[in-house]
């Protein structure tokens, strides 16, 4: 039984687990910006998780990287651009408003306006 406990404790302890106290910045403004950034950044080795909620080493490295850059005074945009240039657009949960993604963003408003005009024409006979 003791062996099991040992194994268990060892195993549990070896699991990284999302944000850790040591990572958190003392400057709350910077920390909030870091959180905001993280929510948009995908953990590339997980399933549909952002780096804040992920347990992986990869996510931990990125969390530390973001905070390091923030402390050095980089803007949010610069950090996102850097991550995209290194890992590709896959890393952002919110696709950039460029190229084919413009279609994705305008799809909803487009069918709304189109549908609305159709309704006005059909029912109100403007």
């Amino acid at each position, binding site marked *: 039984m003791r062996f099991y406990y040992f194994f268990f404790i060892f195993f549990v302890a070896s699991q990284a687990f999302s944000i*850790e106290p040591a990572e958190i910045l003392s400057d709350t403004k910077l920390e909030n910006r870091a959180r905001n950034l993280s929510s*948009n950044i995908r953990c590339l080795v997980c399933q549909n998780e952002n780096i804040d909620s992920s347990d992986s080493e990869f996510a931990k490295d990125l969390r530390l990287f973001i905070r390091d850059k923030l402390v050095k005074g980089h803007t949010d945009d610069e950090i996102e651009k850097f991550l995209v240039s290194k890992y590709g657009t*896959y890393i952002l949960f919110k*696709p950039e408003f460029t190229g084919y993604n413009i279609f*994705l963003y305008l799809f909803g408003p487009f069918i709304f306006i189109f549908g609305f005009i159709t309704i006005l024409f059909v029912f109100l006979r403007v």
Partner: protein
Amino acid sequence: MISELGHFLLIAAFCLNLGLIANYISIKAVLVGHTSFFNKLESLLLTLLAISFLLLIISFVTSDFSVKLVANNSHILKPALYKVAGAWGNHEGSMLLWVLILTLYLFLFQFSSRNYPEVLVRNVILVQLSIIALFLFYILVLSNPFERLEFPPLNGQDLNPILQDVLLVAHPPVLYLGYLGLSIPFSIAIGFLLTNDHKINIVGLIRFWSLTSFIFLTLGILLGSIWAYYELGWGGWWFWDPVENVSLLPWLLNLALIHSVLILERRNSLLNWTILLAIMGFSFSMIGTFIVRSGLITSVHAFANDPSRGLFILLIIFLAITSSFVIYVTKRPNYENSMKLNLASKELWIVVQNLILLVIAAVVFLGTIWPFIIEAIFDEQVSVGEPFYEVSLIPFVIIFAFMLPIASKIRWRRKNNGYVRRLLILIFISSGLSACTFIWKDFNLLTFIGLFLALWICISSILEFISSFKSKLPIIKGLKSSLILNSRLIGRTCAHFGFGLLIFGVTAVTSWEIEDIRNVEVGEKYYLKSYQIVFKGVDYSVEKNFKRVSGSFEVYKNSKLVGTLSPEKRLYPSRNEVTTEASINPTLFNDFYMVLGNKLDENAWVVRTYIKPFISFIWVGVILIALGSFFSVFSFTYKDRGITL
């Protein structure tokens, strides 16, 4: 022997199914008066499938590891409840459940259709039988749940530990009851188009079955959401995971369907639109299954990794959807739009709200499949996640929620003078009340809008209830008859009020959540807002199929004990997986949510604590939406009741 019998029953069911289809196609063979005989055959079909499913459950309960499915998804030490649930916690078993529920709905449909023309009923049954046949064929050819192993293992591979949960035992069947409940409005719509007699009134049928499906869909999604809240250890309740998105699609379309039926019922118009919604609703249910089952998406829900299966399911769905749209385009009723609308007409508001629901569904659908489209066309990888959905959906949700009380308030055939002033006063009051909140909290525009919408919807639905209830029937005439007569009003108020609570809960949790992550030593005390938390220690124990470490925390407020929390970590040796079990102390206004993190040394642990304000309002709101639909199911159409408006 058991599994061979199960397999045999499936084959028998398939043969019976084909025979029934052949009979229904050659209409003359079904003579008037013989329908009861065919009804009995349909009951037989249901019985065969039910026994077959029962035999699968028996294989799981008796841990018969010579059956491949049991060996892959069960374990001898697994608690009995999860052995039973193992039968549908995998691809093959869940497909069998899928067909079983389709047949169950066919069986139940016969009771609801007694007063309808036989030609319609026969067509509906034919359509439903064809859907069953397609999926049954798929099961027999590619996804046999009763497949044997040549060399059975001594023990099974167990069910994914995070799925071993009481809520998740109920989640798939309930959600399936919702998804497949939409098959009946679908079959009614197609069957109706096939009759070529567009004078038949199908409003009551569609209304009954879409509401029934809506109740189960809502509850099924709720169960999954609550599970994610306490099991995934992050306190989130909606993750915009592709699988969650696809369950939202039929829900949104069904919601639109329920409301467009209102117009069809009162005005006898929008028939085409309602039929189209009924077709699209079930189509999205099937697309949802396809996305979940095909292995296109890796998640806890992806069971099938065999590409031929994915292709086959895609073919089935493609066949069903295209043929139904072809039927729609060629056979749709040619009716002249007779509505004369102006800005103050209820129809216009409901139609625009229908449109918004459709837009939301379209955005969610496109967002979900966008990564696949981009990969296929440009060979590039993009992600679409929570921040995207928030940006692109919140404006539509705001417009939708703002319109709701107005659309609900406008009377069908009366002058609406005086309403504008009352509505304006109500808007003024709700925005004033929500502005008051910012005396205590920092101002945030979205929070303000959320609070305003919640108040606006809740207050106006209650006021509407009070005024409408009185105007119909005095309560003196007997509470029971009054309840029956007002069941629609009660249902509507309940559902709309629930929607208001839901908005309030979402706003409160996202705006005012408190998070605390720190290293805590055994015996240490720390403060969070006005709470004092004491870490009493950790405890190790071994259960039947897992080992656990649990922390023990006491929470005090004003030196009074408010709760004891024991967040856990569990190790499941059969799969060598660790799960976190958050400990939650729920109260009406605040959830105290704790998660045990890493062990730092002999005495210190990382502990995450959240205070989640008003999260219970989300659950209560959704339950009220389901309850409201439940009340509405038990009202009949206005024409049936002989009440004129």
